[in-house]
C-alpha cells in the first residue's frame, strides 16, 4: 500500500494541446494504444461493476459446495472460491466500491490542493511560504499508518477513510500543482489579461487553469491508480466490506491461504485489479503525451555520404591555402526534407568566416555538421568537408572524436548552460587537459589557470573553484572559450557566441576572440544573425538563406557592396546606421517569412519575397562568381547592379494597407514553421 510518488510535474508539458490538433475527431490521447486501452478498460470496469447486480450469473453469496475451488468452466467462467461462490459475479460486484472510493480520494485531494496552489501562486511569496510549510508537515506524516489510526477510531467506513486519504494527499497535489501554476503565471498572456483588468478568479479560470489541464489530468489518473491500490490493500488487511460481501483485497487475501492447493484462485481477481491500475497509469501516460521510449541513437549514414563525397571530391581543384574546404554540402532530416543544400565555402588559416542569415536558414546545421554534431535524425546527405586535406564526412563517430576538441573546438550560444552545472570549473578544464595533453593533475591545473588568464579572467584561482551558476554570462562564455582552447585546436566554431549577452559584454567577447585569432593563428567559423557582429570580427562572410549560401566573399566587399537582394534587404532592415548617417523614416523590410524546409521552390528560394523577382527567377540557375573569390546566387545580379537599384523601404502607410501584409504573408493552414516536427532541427 505504498503511496507512490507522483511523477514530477515538469515532465509534463503545461502547454495546452494545440486546438488545431484537438478539434479534429478523437482527443489526442485516445490515439495511442495505451490511451485507448486505459480509457476502454476503465469505462468497461465502471459500467460492468455498477450494473453487476443486473447481469451477474450468480448472487455473490450463492454457494455451490459441489464446485469449490473450481477452475474456469461453462457454468463458472472464472471459476469458484473456497465456498463454491462464482468468481465472475463476485469480482464485478466488488468493483463499484474501489472504483468510486478511489475517485473520492482524487476529488478531495484536488479539491483542496488545486485551489490552494492557485492562491499561493497568485498571492506571492509570503502566502506561498505559509501554505508550503503546512503542506510540508502534512507530507511528512506517514499516510498509511495514520489511515490505520483513523480506522481504529471510526471503524471501517471506506468512503470516509478514502476522503481523509485525499486530505493527506492534497499536500502532494499542492506541491506539484504549485510549480505548474507558478510557471503558467509567468506566461505573458496572464500579465496581458491582468493589464486588461480581468478579475483574479477569471484570470485563473480562463488563462491559468486551462493551461494546467494536462498536468491535472495526468496526476489525477495516477492518483486514481494509487487510490485503487489503497482501497484494495485495506480490504486485504480486513478493513473492507465484511463477508459475505465481496472485495478485491479480501478475495486476494483469501486466495493467498489457498495458494498451495488452488493457485488459480489468485489469478482472476489479481489480474482485474492489476489491469485496472495499469489502465489508469497508461491513461496518465497517454494524456501526458509522454513517449517513454527513447529514440535509438541514430547510426549515421556513412556509406551514402562517402559515395557522394567520392563522386564530387575531384570536381574542382582544391584550394591549396585552405585549412577547411566545404563543398556542395547537403544536410537532411533522415527520410525527410533537406535542411541545407549545396553549401560551399573555404577557410584559410588565421581567418574568421561568418555564416549569417535569419533563423531557419541552416547556418547552425552547417556549423554543426563540420564536427559531426548534428542532432539525432539529421545527417549529412551529400558533399564533402575537407579538413586539412582530410575528408570528415566519411569518418566514423569514433574517428571524428579524435578530431573534436583537439583540432576543432566549439563554443555555443548559451554560455550559462554550456557548462556542466554539477562540476566545478577546475574539473571541467582539468579533465580534457589531462585527456588531450596527457599532463598530470597539478600541471593540468596550472595550465587551466593560465588559460583562464588568457581569456581575460583576472582572478583565475577563484573562478577555478566556482561552479557555473556562480558565474555571470560573460564570465561563463570566457570559461567556455578557455575550455575550447584546452585541446589547442586550429579551428573554433562559434555558434552565436554573443547573442545571449549584453552589448558591452558582447564587445568584450568579440575583442577576446579577435585577440586569440591574432595571437594563436586560430581560424574561426562564427554563426551570427547580426551583421554588426560580422562586420566587427569576420574576414569572410557567407550569407545563408533557406539552406543555401546566397552570397559570399570578403566581409568588406559583401557588406559594403552587397549584390544579392537578400543581403541588401538585411542591411536595409538593420536599424544600426553608421555614425553621421540619418536614421531612415522607415526601414527596409522583407515581406513574409523564410520558407520552411520541404517547401522550397525549385528556382530562387528568395523569389517570393524579392522586390526584383521575375518569371525567370523561378527556374534553377547556378551560383555566379562575385567579390573576387566569392559567389552570388542571383540570376539578375548584373541587371540590378548595372541599374544601381537598392532594396527600397516600403512607403509609409503601405504596411497597414488592408492586404499588404496578407498578400505577402499567407497564414498557414498548418501550424507555422515553429510548430512542425522539424522545428527542433531547424533551430
Amino acid at each position, binding site marked *: 500500500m505504498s503511496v507512490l510518488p507522483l511523477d514530477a510535474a515538469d515532465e509534463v508539458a503545461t502547454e495546452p494541446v494545440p486546438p488545431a490538433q484537438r478539434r479534429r475527431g478523437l482527443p489526442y490521447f485516445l490515439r495511442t494504444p495505451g490511451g485507448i486501452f486505459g480509457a476502454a478498460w476503465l469505462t468497461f470496469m465502471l459500467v460492468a461493476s455498477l450494473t453487476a447486480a443486473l447481469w451477474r450469473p450468480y448472487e455473490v453469496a450463492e454457494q455451490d459446495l459441489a464446485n469449490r475451488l473450481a477452475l474456469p468452466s461453462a457454468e463458472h467462467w472464472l471459476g469458484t472460491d473456497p465456498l463454491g461462490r462464482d468468481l465472475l459475479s463476485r469480482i464485478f460486484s466488488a468493483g463499484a466500491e474501489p472504483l468510486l472510493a478511489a475517485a473520492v480520494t482524487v476529488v478531495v485531494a484536488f479539491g483542496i490542493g488545486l485551489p490552494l496552489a492557485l492562491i499561493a501562486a497568485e498571492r506571492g511569496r509570503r502566502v506561498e511560504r505559509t501554505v508550503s510549510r503546512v503542506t510540508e508537515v502534512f507530507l511528512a506524516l506517514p499516510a498509511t499508518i495514520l489511515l490505520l489510526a483513523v480506522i481504529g477510531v471510526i471503524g471501517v467506513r471506506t468512503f470516509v477513510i478514502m476522503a481523509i486519504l485525499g486530505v493527506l494527499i492534497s499536500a502532494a497535489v499542492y506541491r506539484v500543482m504549485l510549480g505548474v501554476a507558478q510557471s503558467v503565471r509567468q506566461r505573458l498572456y496572464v500579465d496581458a489579461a491582468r493589464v486588461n483588468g480581468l478579475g483574479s478568479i477569471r484570470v485563473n479560470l480562463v488563462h491559468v487553469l486551462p493551461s494546467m489541464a494536462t498536468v491535472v489530468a495526468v496526476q489525477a489518473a495516477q492518483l486514481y491508480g494509487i487510490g485503487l491500490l489503497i482501497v484494495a490493500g485495506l480490504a486485504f488487511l480486513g478493513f473492507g466490506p465484511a463477508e459475505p460481501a465481496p472485495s478485491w483485497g479480501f478475495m486476494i487475501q483469501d486466495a493467498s491461504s489457498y495458494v498451495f492447493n488452488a493457485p488459480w484462485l489468485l489469478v482472476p481477481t489479481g489480474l482485474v485489479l492489476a489491469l485496472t491500475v495499469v489502465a489508469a497509469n497508461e491513461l496518465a501516460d497517454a494524456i501526458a503525451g509522454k513517449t517513454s*521510449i527513447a529514440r535509438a541513437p541514430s547510426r549515421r549514414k556513412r556509406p551514402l555520404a562517402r559515395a557522394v563525397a567520392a563522386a564530387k571530391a575531384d570536381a574542382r581543384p582544391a584550394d591549396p591555402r585552405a585549412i577547411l574546404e566545404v563543398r556542395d554540402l547537403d544536410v537532411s532530416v533522415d527520410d525527410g526534407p533537406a535542411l541545407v543544400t549545396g553549401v560551399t565555402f573555404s577557410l584559410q588559416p588565421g581567418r574568421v568566416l561568418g555564416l549569417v542569415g535569419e533563423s531557419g536558414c541552416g547556418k547552425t546545421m552547417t556549423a554543426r555538421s563540420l564536427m559531426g554534431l548534428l542532432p539525432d535524425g539529421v545527417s549529412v546527405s551529400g558533399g564533402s568537408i575537407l579538413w586539412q586535406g582530410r575528408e570528415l564526412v566519411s569518418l566514423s563517430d569514433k574517428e571524428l572524436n579524435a578530431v573534436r576538441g583537439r583540432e576543432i573546438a*566549439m563554443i555555443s550560444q548559451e554560455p550559462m548552460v554550456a557548462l556542466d552545472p554539477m562540476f566545478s570549473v577546475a574539473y571541467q578544464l582539468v579533465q580534457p587537459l589531462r585527456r588531450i595533453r596527457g599532463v598530470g593533475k597539478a600541471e593540468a591545473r596550472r595550465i587551466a589557470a593560465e588559460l583562464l588568464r588568457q581569456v581575460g579572467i583576472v582572478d583565475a584561482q577563484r573562478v577555478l573553484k566556482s561552479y557555473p551558476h556562480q558565474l555571470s554570462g560573460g564570465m561563463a562564455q570566457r570559461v567556455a572559450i578557455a575550455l*575550447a582552447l584546452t585541446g589547442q585546436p586550429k579551428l573554433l566554431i562559434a555558434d552565436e557566441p554573443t547573442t545571449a549577452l549584453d552589448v558591452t559584454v558582447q564587445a568584450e567577447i568579440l575583442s577576446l576572440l579577435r585577440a586569440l585569432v591574432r595571437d594563436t593563428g586560430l581560424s574561426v567559423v562564427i554563426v551570427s544573425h547580426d551583421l554588426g557582429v560580422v562586420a566587427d570580427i569576420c574576414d569572410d562572410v557567407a550569407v545563408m538563406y533557406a539552406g543555401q549560401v546566397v552570397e559570399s566573399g570578403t566581409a568588406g566587399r559583401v557588406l559594403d557592396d552587397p549584390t544579392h537582394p537578400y543581403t541588401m534587404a538585411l542591411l536595409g532592415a538593420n536599424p544600426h546606421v553608421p555614425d553621421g548617417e540619418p536614421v531612415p523614416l522607415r526601414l527596409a523590410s522583407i515581406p513574409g517569412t523564410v520558407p520552411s524546409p520541404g517547401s522550397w521552390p525549385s528556382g530562387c528560394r528568395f523569389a517570393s519575397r524579392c522586390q526584383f523577382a521575375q518569371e525567370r527567377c523561378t527556374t534553377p540557375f547556378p551560383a555566379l562568381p562575385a567579390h573576387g573569390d566569392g559567389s552570388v546566387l542571383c540570376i539578375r545580379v548584373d541587371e540590378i547592379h548595372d541599374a544601381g537599384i537598392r532594396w527600397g523601404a516600403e512607403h509609409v502607410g503601405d504596411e497597414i494597407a488592408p492586404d499588404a501584409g496578407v498578400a505577402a504573408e499567407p497564414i498557414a493552414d498548418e501550424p507555422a514553421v515553429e510548430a512542425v516536427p522539424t522545428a527542433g532541427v531547424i533551430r
Partner: protein
Amino acid sequence: MLGYVARRLAMAVGTILAAVVISFLLVHVSDSTPGAVRLGPGATAEQIAAENEALGWNRPLVVQFFDYLGDLVQGDLGTSLIDGRSIGADLADRVPVTASIALFATILSGVVGVLVGVTAAVRGGRVSRFLMTGSGIALSLPAFWVGVLLVYVLAIQTGLFPATGYVEFATDPFGWFTSLAIPIITLTVGGAAIIARTANAGMREALAQEHIRTLRAMGTPEWRIRYVHALRFASLPVVSVLGIQFIALFGGSVIIENLFALPGLGQAGQSAAASSDIPALIGVVVVATVVVVITNLLLDLLVAALDPKVRTT
C-alpha cells in the same frame, strides 16, 4: 547554513507535534473510549466510566496532551490497553524488522531501477520500449498480489525461500536473510519500476542538455559523457524519489508484514487499529513520523552534497 539547519530542525519538531496533535484529536472525536476497549463488550456503562476515570481519560484534553508530550520527551509511549505491555519496548523490537525490509528494498530498487532506467535511456529503440513498458506495468501491480505470486513461484514451486515467518538475526543470520528475501523482492518490483522511470526520464533529460553537447564537441569519450556527466545530473531526481520510496515502504510495509507474518511496525499498527488500542496507535504514528522526519533530514543533506547549487547558496 546554521539558519537552514535550525529551520529544518524546527520543521522536524513541528511535524512530530502535528502527528501527535492529529492522532490525539482523532482519538477524542470518536465514540470509543479506552475504558470500553480495555473491558471489552461485556462491561456495563458504569464500569467503563470508572475505568475511564482511572485511566485519566476525563481530564481536560490539553492536560492529557501535555502529559503525553512530557512522557514522550522521556521516551515513554505509555502502555497497551490490550495486554498492558510497554508500547515503547514493543515498538523498539519491531522497528528494526520494518527498517531492514524498507532499507534493503530501497537499496535494491535503486540498483535495479537505475540499471533498467539508464539502459533504456542509453540504448533506446526496442530495448527501451520493452524495459519502460515493463516498468509501467510493474509499478501498477498490487504488492500483496505480487507477494503471493512470488510465494507460489519462489517458495512453493522452487522452494528457494520460506513462504512466511520471521527468523531473528541473532538466532540464525542466514535464516534471517531468507525469511526477508521474498518480502524484499516483492517491494522491489514496484519500487524498482518507479526508480526506473525516474532514472530514465532524468537520464534522457540529462543527455539532451546543452552541456552534453559541449562535452561531445570536446571529443569526450561516450562512457564518460554518459556515466560521469549525465548520470550525475540524473542522480538528483533519483535520490529524492529513493527517499520518498523509503518513507513509503516504511509506512506502507503493513501489508507485506501481514502477508508474510513479520513482526514489524505495520503489523503493530494493524492489530492496534483492529482492536482500537488507542495508545498503541498513537505510538505507531509517532514512531513512523520520527523515522520520516529523520529520513527527510538525511535526504536534504544528501541532495546538498550532490547539487552544487544547493551547497553553495
